[in-house]
């Protein structure tokens, strides 16, 4: 197992009222929380030093997550338990700090993310239709890119899906690497599901099976 020295990863939840804050808002929030936690954080050198902090994946406003991953660099060693305790005491209710651990995989190895979608519109009646729609090839949507909007086939970005219509639950495993990140909202728009709750529950490496650590 590769060990990335002096980097620490922290897995936390962003749920409830916190789903309304953006990725950038989250970065700023964590910076002040880390300072309040009095963790010995490393700063970059040079003209405009800033905290060495990275939050792995963007999350849309309106989506929740129980597997947000934040990577930090400390200048002095702290045990995983110390980090969780210090940070837990410095964040608003709504953030749950689950664990701090030494990274196994490089950030670039992050490949796929699992989302749990819940909606009244996912049930015994609609399940068949939903699965049929998700088998459409190619699956064309208007995707917003840096250079504007483009008609894109998002099918390659879907690894697997499953429906549990008893629990009105649709599970999607979608591409989450830097280049081809697929926002679950595109898939939901394609299926025609309007008001769903979206919860990111797991992240995997490239094989879409091994948990990203």
């Amino acid at each position, binding site marked *: 197992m590769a060990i990335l020295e002096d980097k620490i990863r922290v897995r936390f939840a962003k749920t409830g*009222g916190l789903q309304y804050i953006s990725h950038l808002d989250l970065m700023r929030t964590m*910076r*002040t929380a880390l*300072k309040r936690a009095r963790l010995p954080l490393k700063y970059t050198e040079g*003209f405009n*030093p800033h905290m060495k902090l990275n939050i792995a994946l963007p999350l849309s406003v*309106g989506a929740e997550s129980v597997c947000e991953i934040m990577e930090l660099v400390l200048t002095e060693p702290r045990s995983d338990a110390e980090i969780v305790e210090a940070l837990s005491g410095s964040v608003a209710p709504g953030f749950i700090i689950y664990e701090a651990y030494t990274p196994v995989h490089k950030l670039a190895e992050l490949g796929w993310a699992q989302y749990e979608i819940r909606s009244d519109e996912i049930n015994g009646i609609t399940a068949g239709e939903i699965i049929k729609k998700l088998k459409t090839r190619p699956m064309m949507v208007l995707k917003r890119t840096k250079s504007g909007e483009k008609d894109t086939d998002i099918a390659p970005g879907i690894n697997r899906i499953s429906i549990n219509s008893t629990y009105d639950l649709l599970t999607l495993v979608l591409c989450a690497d830097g280049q081809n990140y697929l926002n679950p909202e595109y898939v939901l728009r394609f299926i025609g599901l309007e008001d769903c*709750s979206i919860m990111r529950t797991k992240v995997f490496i490239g094989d879409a099976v091994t948990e990203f650590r």
Partner: protein
Amino acid sequence: MYDRKILRRVLKPGRYSGGEYGQIVKNPADTKCSFVFCFPDTYEIGMSNLGVRLLYGALNSEPDVRCERAYAPWVDMEAELRAADIPLQSHENGQPLGTFDIVGFTLQYELNYTNVLNMLELGKIPLLAEERGEEHPIVIGGGPCAYNAEPVAEFFDIFSIGEGEEALVELARLYINMKESGSYTREAFKREASHLAGFYVPSLYDISYNSDGTISAIEPKYPDVPVRVTKRIIADFDNSFFPEMLVMPYIECVHDRIMLETFRGCIRGCRFCQAGMIFRPVREKKAETLDRQARELYKNTGYDEISLSALSISDYSQLPELTDMLLSWTDKCMVNLSLPSLRIDSFSEELMKKVDSVRSSGLTFAPEAGTQRMRDVINKNVTEEDLLNACQIAFRNGKNQIKLYFMNGLPTETHEDIDGIAKLADSVVSSYYRMSEKPRSRPPQVTISVACFVPKPFTPFQWEPQDTLENLREKQKHLGDCITNRKNIRYTWHDARVSHVEAVFARGDRRLSRALLEARKLDLKFDGWDEHFDFDKWMKAFENAGIDPAFYANREFGRDEILPWDMIDIGVTKEFLLRENDKAHLAKTTPSCREKCSGCGANRLFDGDDSQICGRCCP
């Protein structure tokens, strides 16, 4: 909390979702007085306001008082609330505004008044105070505009005049006592509040008018109601309440940092400046106190910037000591220290280097007027030489961007004074090129930012008319024509029509409430925002209300005229303001309080002492 479906449809839902770190959420069952602090502008602007953060902490430090927050919803959220008929609610407990005991508004800017009315409406509270019943909250206003609150007097039950840290707590205590003793009714409460120092209850005064429209009398209705309400000050400012915790916004705000209030009041006496007068007498906090408060706040918030706040930070008597104390730990903790704009004539290289933020490549100065004569009229005691020296220091230290603030439409202004603004900018640019050694090869970028003069109550210029809209715009255009060097000089100016409406309300009286009701009917709001300000609708509102806006904005008020704000005593006397007005018209300057006391009268507030000798004003 608002419904998820709605929050997912609006811009920046974080403005409404609450849950911030540092917020104080109390169980309604545990408190006897509930207060909601309403900021009549967006969340981002409200969260940056120091006064609100201070009062939130002061009220919540009373165990049986609960203070929550509400902000003006943006237009998209307002549409959702109206469509679903959902009342505006507070952040902490999601409680509808109309069910609080006391609803408080901070009146920062006249162009927020329409937002006040809109928030009352969205909170399901009757707009007019006289229409409220026992089931409705007491609506109270405070802040800078409360010194002349007459335009909104019909919408408020009580005004808090002056510093609110102690006053509002006293009001809450009065509320609780009256409720517990069974003597509480709205009218009884308001009557009792009028007996507390610093509270103005507008419904207890009769205003009568002359045939020419000016005020003939302001009379209390009963003998126990004070003829004049004296503003509250915290005499021992060094020991005054200061919060140890701040609510940390999630959304990016205008100012998101620790603000240390170093002193209140100002020694300079610039004649256009309302803040300098209404916050007198000058009271400082000790450097040790400020350093201690900064450390405590940093520990509890984790902010990476501390800003020293004051009307004129250069005049804080312990500035070198304070900056040294702070710098001894802020660098290590990766915290930036920033200062607001420094006075041109006390701009020191040493100070600039100390707090130099490497990221900023520019400095801001406020000469305010283009000629020495004009600067003398407004008592802004800086010379062209002072400005060029300050700019030289900036250039030598690698700052090539200079921003200069000016006003046009000042009393006694001529075109020569406008030309002077352009000439001053040219002098700054040529002084750069005359420098023997230039540290960088980048050309200087001088930005002239020109606002329109608005006469404000409690200033020596309170009697002066605002220049007409036509003149203001003509002068703005003329200045543009005078600026020939567009490579090095940028020129920005404020919409004179906005300043015109501001001037109407700044010196307005109670009859303007009709115009505000008409403005509400025309759905005017967020008037301080370019995309929402609608001048034509405002003129329609004034017309529908039978109001001539020029009567308030463009008329010269008589020296013996009863002014709408005469029932308020801010310490500084009208005699002093008249003396200053006379000197202005002779272009004679007045020295700063530290050089020579001018007997403004603010010292009377310390112990009701009428003597003209200002002993405790300046340290």
